[in-house]
Structure formats: structure tokens, C-alpha cells
């Protein structure tokens, strides 16, 4: 895929600490990486490595960190017009139909109704939900609702699509199929995307580069270039090269995941038990 050599998003020496009753907890330590225009980058790490904190900092939802995040050179100090966020939790508005959900950011921008509904329909078609425009979220499956959330964020036309485990609550087969859909959309729109995930298969399937993080405090352990041909299809998942990348990333993650489990068990042992 054609990418600009200039980074669009730069995360530079990011440190985030939280105050807890037990003292200061370093969630992120000296995180640094960049995403070029049109690039698809995934951040992967074990549970508790600070992925969601990183997502919220880049999205401008939490502050109070050291280092800086810049978009096209401008520092991020709050929610940014260039960033569209897709959340892990179900985030569609239950009181709005699919088309009203997708048209929401356009309504906020003050776009006339006919125009915004037409645009919303375009993005609904892009995520493969034609025919469901007038349905309410409760009438859709979990995967369909997440596609509505993605279409809503795409309608915002962000420079960077920032996604936090959008298919985390779905089964593996649905995840792969929806990953394929995201891939098609990303290739069609040449959308710069940063995906936070804990699925190695998803990261390899979708990404140009994978940022592997350590367990707490979250640091960048390694950045893996995924040199698989594009356009990618689901056939890739069964290929030898796919397996090689998956194994490579798993080798990096295994140690961190084991450490995370050991520390979690130690915390439980150290905590006062039920009387």
C-alpha cells in the first residue's frame, strides 16, 4: 500500500502514572512509535499492559501524562477532530436507528438532514449493513452493532481511525470475518488506522506493523513489520507466512503474559481472603 514517509501520528516518550491507595502505579513507560498516513498499525499486549490507557490518551480522553502525542505535528491535548474512536464496549445509541446512529457526527457538524442521511447510507453500505438502516441496535447482533459503530466513526471522516479491541466480545470466527471487512474498508478508504488488540491473528491479518507491549509497566518490547502482500484476504490466515508471524509475536508475548498471570496470582494470594 502506498504510504507517506512522514508520520501522521507520533507517540513520543509517553509515560502515564496512576495514583492508587498502594502508591504510584506506572501504567505506561516511555512508549514511542509512529503511524504513517495510510498505514495500519496494531498495538498488542497482555491484559493489564496499559493498551486501553494508551487508546484513551491518543484519543485525548485522558490527560496528565508525560511525553507527547502529536497528529501532523500538532500536540494532542483533548479529543481531536482528526481522530475517530471505536470503543471496545457496545457504543451505539440505543434510541437511534442504524442510519441515525451513523449520521450522528454529521448531525453534530450541522450537515443538512438529506445530505447527512445520504452520507450515512454510503458508510452503512461500506460496512455491509444495507437493508438495516431503519433497525434499532437491539435488533442487531453484537458484530453488526460494532459495524454500526465503525460506520459512525468513519462518517466523521477522521484522519486516523483509532480502535480499541472492537471485536473483543465476539467469537473467533466472527472476528476473522469482521477483520476481513475492516481490511476491505481500510484498503478502499486508505484509512490510517491504529488498532488496539489482544488477538495475535487479528493483528497479523490486518497490520503493516505490530507494536508488541510488555506487561506492566507497558513498554514497547518490539515492533514487528508484517511483510505480507496486499490486498489481503481471509485465505492469508491459513498460509505459512501468517503462521510464522503469529508464532514470532506469540514468542514475544508468551513471557509477558506468563509474568502477568504470575503477578495477578501473587496479588490475589497477598490480598486478605474471605473470612
Amino acid at each position: 500500500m502506498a504510504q507517506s514517509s512522514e508520520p501522521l501520528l507520533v507517540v513520543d516518550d509517553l509515560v502515564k502514572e496512576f495514583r492508587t491507595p498502594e502508591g504510584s502505579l506506572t501504567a505506561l513507560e516511555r512508549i514511542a512509535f509512529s503511524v504513517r498516513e495510510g498505514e495500519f498499525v496494531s498495538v498488542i499486549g497482555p491484559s493489564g499492559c496499559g493498551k486501553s490507557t494508551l487508546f484513551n490518551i491518543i484519543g485525548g480522553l485522558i490527560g496528565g501524562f508525560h511525553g507527547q502525542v502529536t497528529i501532523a505535528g500538532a500536540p494532542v491535548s483533548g479529543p481531536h477532530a482528526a481522530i475517530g474512536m471505536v470503543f471496545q464496549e457496545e457504543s451505539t445509541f440505543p434510541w437511534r436507528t442504524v442510519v441515525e446512529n451513523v449520521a450522528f457526527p454529521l448531525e453534530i457538524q450541522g450537515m443538512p438532514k438529506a445530505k447527512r442521511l445520504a452520507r450515512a447510507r454510503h458508510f452503512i453500505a461500506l460496512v455491509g449493513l444495507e437493508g438495516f438502516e431503519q433497525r434499532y441496535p437491539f435488533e442487531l447482533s453484537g458484530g453488526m452493532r460494532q459495524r454500526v459503530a465503525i460506520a459512525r466513526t468513519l462518517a466523521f471522516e477522521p484522519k486516523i481511525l483509532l480502535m480499541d479491541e472492537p471485536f473483543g466480545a465476539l467469537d473467533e470466527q466472527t472476528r476473522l470475518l469482521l477483520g476481513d471487512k475492516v481490511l476491505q474498508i481500510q484498503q478502499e478508504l486508505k484509512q490510517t488506522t491504529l488498532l488496539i488488540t489482544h488477538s495475535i491473528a487479528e493483528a497479523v491479518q490486518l497490520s503493516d506493523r505490530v507494536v508488541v507491549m510488555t506487561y506492566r509497566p507497558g513498554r514497547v518490547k518490539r515492533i514487528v513489520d508484517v511483510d505480507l502482500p496486499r490486498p489481503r484476504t481471509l485465505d492469508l490466515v491459513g498460509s505459512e507466512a501468517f503462521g510464522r508471524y503469529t508464532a514470532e509475536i506469540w514468542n514475544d508475548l508468551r513471557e509477558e503474559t506468563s509474568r502477568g498471570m504470575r503477578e495477578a496470582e501473587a496479588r490475589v494470594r497477598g490480598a486478605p481472603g474471605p473470612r
Partner: protein
Amino acid sequence: MTGSPMPQPIARFLPALTGIFTAVAVLLVLELLIDADWVNAYLVPPPSAVLLSFGRMITEEHIAERFLLTAAAALGTGLLLVAVGIPLGLLLHRFPLIRRATETWVAAYASAPLVLAYPLFLVIFGRSALTIVMIGFFAGLAPVILKTLEGLTGIRPVLIDVSRSFRLSPAQHFWKVLLPAAAPTIFVGLRLGLIFALINIIGVEFLINFGGLGQLINDLAERYDLPGTYAAICFAVLVSVVFFAALERLERWYRPARSAADAEV
């Protein structure tokens, strides 16, 4: 084994038909019990006598006028509950200190028998419709405040994050996210508030012998016109039915998703 599916129009009206049938059956049983002297007719008039007195209520007791007086008091109270109760709930949500300072008081005030304070209201507002509206309003206020607060507090944080990520202005955030997200619980509060308000409106009309249906019920009870009293009570129930139906329609208009969800069931 499964039976053949019910025709669509019958399935649609079945709940209403079941309700009507049950009410008619209960009234018939009551009529028979009174006829058989198992229930004292001087204490409980036969439903047929109550039914026959409806015409008399309309022609002799100006029931339409009284119905409208009570309905107008209920409408004024309802509008006040919306205009004051929801903003107060929002205020408590917006300022945690005020919430912590007053929430217990508001909850305690919700269960206070406010109608007993009617002499105080008479002193302040006089023997007028305003007294009736104000007692109804204060009686129904607490559930509206508490349910608005509960609705706003219960909004899933991710919806707030979506709002922030799309950089909504405070007004957009309130009208397009907070209010619709909290609406189901706010409507529950309005229903509860209206119940408390209607009980108190009719009760105060009865106590101070002023206004609409409550005053008529008082008059008829003092004349020991039991069929007329029960007929007037039926009209008081009708006020409640009208207001709840109106609130239901308002909710379906504001929350079309609820209509769609109900249609699914």
C-alpha cells in the same frame, strides 16, 4: 406440539380484550354477590346502579366541568414536575457535593405524607386552584428528581466517551446524549410523580371541598349517594387513565425505539 398461530388482529387486541373481559367478569361477580346479599348493598352499591348514575352525574352534577378542573390541575402539576423536577435531578447529577448533601433528604421527603400539610398550603396560596396544584407538585417532585438522577448516573460511560470523542458542545451533550440515554428512567419518575400528584390533587380537593372531582366525591359521600360517589370515583380514575395514556404517547414519540421494542414482543 404447537398450536396454529393466532390471526394477527386478534393477537394485537388480545391484551386489551383480556383486560376488558376481566373487568366485566369482576363487576358481574360483584353484582351477583350483592344480589345474593353476600355483600351489603348499603356499603358497596351494585355496579348496575353505579352505571345508571353516570347519566345523572353528567346532567345534574356538571361532571364534565369538574373533570376538566381536576384534569387542568393535573396538567399544570405535570408541566411543573417536568419543568422543575428534571432540572433539579440534573443539578444533583452535575454537582456531587449538592447531591451528597441533599439526596437523603429528597429520598425521605418522597415518603412524607405531604397532604397533611394542606393547612400550611392554604395559608400560603389561599383556598384556590393554586393550592391544589402546589400540593400535587410537591407530592410528585421527589420521584422525578430521584429518577432523573438515577437515569443520568446510570448512563454507560462509553456513551459519554463517544460524546467526548465527537467533541459535542455541552448543550449537544445534554440534548443528544444525556437526556435520551436517561429518558427511560426519567419517564418512570414522571409516572411515579404523576401517581403521587393525582392522589394528592383528588385528596386535597376532597379535604378542602374545592375544585373538581374530589369536591364532588366529598359532596356525594356526605349526601350518602353511594352510586354517585362511585361514579365520580370512576371519573377520577379516568383522569388518571387519560394522563397515563398521554404520557405513554409522549414517551413513544420521544423514544420510538421503545415502540419498536414493544412491537418485537
